[in-house]
């Protein structure tokens, strides 16, 4: 299915016939996206619908069966360092180096991104994500929520132009959900683009300028969206979600 792609002038993220085939009977795509700077887009869909696969394709971590991904006008391939640095990515299950500390892994990532002012930037990221109290503890000893905050700090450390977050709210407590919401709102105001997946319709309704739904391997935009208030937006997502037949009969 094709995402409408005509009205947006400059695409930060664009895909052309992006397709991932899993089996002769099932594929994700073809997907044609066009995302402008400053947009915050939500992706919803059932478990196993292909949200994480789509994100892996968009970040260049997974080779597509066919099609292309362009970021800021440049084709994204696995070995395009400069383009990849425009993206920040939070995987669904972020595995962190278990022998390292939060401070170390952030310092390491800052060096990999070749960021200036590491000594200021890393503590600032720690402070925003409230990682300071456990910054010197090995990551393997931290709780899931704490690890998630370190992973969020990693994904946002270099203030990427395109931020891709796979289920960012899961595991976070209310304080940090609020921090994430504020971050996403600020990013939108700064003209930075975010794509996120979530199963909580309220987050989509509150934060996203557009929402896509993945169903049977096809990506469809939920319309109308911009003209709706929060309540109707949530209903629109639920209507799309429950319209499709359930994969398994419920007892």
């Amino acid at each position, binding site marked *: 299915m094709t995402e409408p792609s005509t009205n947006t002038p400059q695409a930060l993220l664009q895909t052309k016939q992006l397709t991932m085939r899993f089996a002769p009977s099932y594929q994700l795509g073809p997907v044609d996206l066009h995302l402008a700077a400053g947009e915050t887009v939500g992706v919803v869909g059932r478990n196993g619908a292909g949200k994480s696969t789509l994100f892996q394709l968009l970040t260049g971590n997974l080779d597509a069966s066919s099609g292309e991904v362009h970021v800021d006008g440049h084709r994204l391939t696995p070995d395009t360092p400069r383009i990849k640095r425009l993206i920040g*990515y939070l995987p669904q299950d972020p*595995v962190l180096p278990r022998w390292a500390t939060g*401070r*170390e892994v952030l310092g*390491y990532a800052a*060096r*990999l991104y*070749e960021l200036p002012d590491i000594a200021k930037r890393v503590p600032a990221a720690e402070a925003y994500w409230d990682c300071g109290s456990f910054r010197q*503890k090995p990551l393997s*000893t931290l709780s899931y929520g704490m690890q998630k905050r370190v992973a969020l700090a990693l994904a946002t450390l270099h203030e990427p132009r395109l931020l891709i977050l796979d289920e960012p709210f899961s595991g976070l407590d209310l304080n940090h959900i609020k921090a994430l919401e504020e971050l996403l709102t600020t990013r939108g105001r700064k003209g930075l683009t975010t794509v996120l997946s979530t199963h909580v319709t309220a987050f989509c309704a509150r934060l996203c300028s557009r929402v896509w739904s993945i169903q049977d391997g096809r990506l469809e935009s939920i319309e109308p969206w911009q003209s709706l208030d929060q309540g109707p937006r949530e209903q629109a997502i639920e209507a799309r979600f429950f319209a499709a037949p359930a994969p398994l009969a419920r007892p």
Partner: protein
Amino acid sequence: MHLYLLWWLGLSHRLRHDLARELTFAIASCVLIATFFYVFNDFLNVQVAALSAAMHQRFAKLASIALLLLTGARAATWLRHERFAATGVRQMARHLGEKRTTVQAWSWLYTLTLTSFSHGLCWWIIHRYLTPWSLPQAALFEAMLLVTTALVVRWPAAPQPAMQRDSALEGDRSLGLTLYLWRLRQIVGRNRASQFALILSTMFLLLVALAAMRTLPLFVAALCSLAAGYTSTAALIFHLADDLPSAWTERGSGVTHDRFVTTYFWLGATLAGAYALAASCAYLSGAAALGGGDLGIATIGQALQLAAVAIVPGLTAPMLCMQIDGRRSGINLLLLLIAALFVGTAVFAHWLGLGLIPVLGSFALKSQAGRFYRA
């Protein structure tokens, strides 16, 4: 019994749903084991045949002890994992409120199945291919192994490590050096499996010195040097298996596959270089202790020969460990063992054998082209 069946079903589902990957792994393992026996017959048997019967018997005994210890360690790791892992049949049953006795019964069944299968297979291989053990000896060793396994499995999970030194933001360094130092620090200072391998390697260095002191054939010292190089490289392989699942940070920051593999090459070269030098020094020290500090040119030549043999695994491992699956240290250790024996024997025969390493590297680079942190 229901939990036990569930475990078997889980295994079969894993095989069914991940058939291609598991088949590749199984076939690759079989090919490697077959190659190992081929290499052994063609290259090493000649050397082994030259040894006396008593020495031959001692080697077979040592090999069987090593095999038993490896099998015991592997089985203990699996059992301990099942005991402490957050997921798994045991934890699931406990969370579902299953009776304590039922969970214990499952644990016993699981332990019995795993131990009897792994230890039984090991004893069969020893009896069939290495050297038969007398029944009392075998029973005693097996009992010791079981007691050690029980201690390892029941040992409480490690307490929270102490706070780490805060030096993460110090200094200014290049991207390559950042990648290199990050891993070197983990391997030497943090990763316990890697640290264990490095300690084992140091013990082999002592054996090199001992071989020189006891004036054993040079072949024995060379084998110990190779073992020192091999075990030090195992530290690298253990760390790679830990490193790959968290490599999304590197991937996201635009670190290319080539740069990632190159980092491991330099790490391998560092470890191999250090242990080769140490093997050489150990041999010279042993020889010096024997001869009252007098070292001839021939001895120095032999020490250099040992260094060349010890350096082989460290230089070849980075080329091999992403060929099948970097996350599976077992298959990589086997692959490295074959390559190290093959190239190590060639280097022992003549130092020009070191020329095989670039050839191996060329093939490895070609097969890795276009891959992205994947085998």
